[in-house]
């Protein structure tokens, strides 16, 4: 188990570096393509150590470690008498950081699911229906939706197997026509691409690599890519970058009509300093996302599958020599 953890962590570091370097070298702006590459970097280190251990047990023999291996953890752990203890400490620290990163993303989801909500259904307004109609591809028809009566400006996709766009009356009221079209187009992209399912798959992979902080960081980056890909779709469909950016700001930084802003919610649960840091990080993420929406050049997703497949093959081959 310890050997698997060491190898998986090493593979994740190498895979993370390899994929991020490729993204930079290829100057990949298309979020969908980046997402696929990062999925490769997330999946391979979880699977390959087991697969290689089963198919090629000779990788852990001395001749391989001291011969063709490109990087052998054994060389580090055997270099100094205290090295095995350092490796154990590093693994423990990595495990703690990985579990914290996973919990940081899992706890809000669980809390959201567990929170009692008194949503009441509301009639779909014609503005929302028109926006959904415009955002949905002609051949697939209008995406399923649900409108709820709530004082919170909510707009999200619910359901992994049968995804539907959920919007609150407050969100419809708060966004103007252009913003509503852009925001609904963003959510429609999630429905079309079944991103909710992908999100759960990524969470499952992160759970499998819970003690691996690199896997957790890659998992978070994938979710950011999912959002960016949906932004790209919305910009493509509506052609209105400003409307999408302002809708993002309105929905993510402004809270319920009768309550404090979203960024301030739940602060009572955390010490002030942590809450301030949390709020600042959230605001910075929104700002980055808006900047990307406003600045993104229109670049086609060229050969995403070819890139991902070629990356998986080359990276898999490289990782074979990392033991």
């Amino acid at each position, binding site marked *: 188990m310890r050997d698997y953890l060491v190898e998986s962590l090493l593979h994740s570091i190498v895979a993370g570096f390899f994929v991020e*370097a490729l993204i930079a070298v290829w100057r990949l702006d298309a979020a969908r393509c980046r997402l696929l590459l990062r999925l490769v970097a997330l999946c391979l280190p979880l699977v390959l150590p087991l697969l290689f251990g089963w198919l090629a047990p000779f990788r852990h023999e001395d001749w391989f470690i001291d*011969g063709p291996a490109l*990087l052998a953890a054994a*060389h*580090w752990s*055997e270099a*100094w008498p205290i090295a095995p203890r350092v490796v154990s400490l590093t693994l423990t620290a990595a495990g703690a950081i990985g579990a914290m990163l996973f919990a940081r993303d899992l706890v809000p989801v669980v809390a959201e699911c567990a929170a009692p909500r008194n949503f009441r259904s509301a009639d779909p307004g014609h503005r929302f229906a028109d926006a959904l109609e415009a955002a949905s591809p002609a051949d697939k028809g209008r995406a399923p939706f649900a409108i709820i009566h709530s004082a919170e400006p909510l707009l999200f996709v619910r359901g992994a197997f049968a995804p539907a766009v959920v919007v609150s009356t407050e969100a419809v009221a708060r966004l103007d026509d252009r913003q509503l079209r852009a925001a609904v187009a963003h959510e429609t992209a999630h429905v079309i691409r079944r991103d909710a399912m992908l999100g759960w798959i990524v969470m499952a992979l992160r759970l499998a690599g819970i003690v691996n902080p690199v896997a957790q960081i890659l998992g978070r980056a994938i979710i950011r890519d999912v959002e960016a890909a949906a932004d790209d779709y919305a910009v493509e469909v509506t052609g209105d970058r400003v409307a999408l950016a302002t809708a993002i700001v309105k929905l993510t930084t402004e809270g319920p009509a009768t309550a404090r802003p979203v960024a301030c919610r739940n602060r009572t649960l955390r010490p002030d300093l942590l809450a301030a840091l949390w709020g600042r990080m959230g605001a910075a993420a929104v700002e980055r996302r808006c900047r990307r929406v406003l600045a993104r050049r229109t670049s086609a997703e060229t*050969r995403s599958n*070819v890139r991902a497949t070629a990356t998986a093959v080359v990276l898999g081959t*490289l990782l074979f020599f990392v033991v």
Partner: protein
Amino acid sequence: MRDGARIMMGLASVGVVTIVLLRALDSIPAALSAGARGVIRVASIADVQRRVDAPLLLPAYFPDTLRWPPTDVRFVRTPHPGVTLAFAGRQSGRARLIVSQSLDSNAAPGVGSHADVAVLHETSIKLEAGPGTLRRLESADGTVWQELTSTIRGRNVRLRYRGSARELIAIAQGLREDSSEASP
């Protein structure tokens, strides 16, 4: 076509950089412990005997001028396993006796070579265990060493000693297999 070439170029360049970085990272432990790739340092004779799963030849005769236990214990596993023990002097703390031995009769003895020394004199000698070669060496820093190479109990052995040739021969004659780490 142009896209395909760009994809291949990107993969190749990142692949090469990754390979170079991995190799560099892998050679750091050996560089820090002043050894070659694959040379492993351990804390004690017991450790190395456990790792190589074989008893070592240890000197039964051990001059008072040397300090026990060895200050440096190294071994290599591939291509041919070998062990090197370095013993410091009681006064200086610098290495005075280096015992290298192969664990495979076809292999050179342990870690190290003649690359860093000049051979001043060489003569053949006869030990109880068989023939051997006695050399007088000068290292790059001007230190003069006596070196004795021979095959003792099926192992190729090389001893280097900063002291008299007579003492070195006595040490070589006293090499015995020993699985314990007790001081001789």
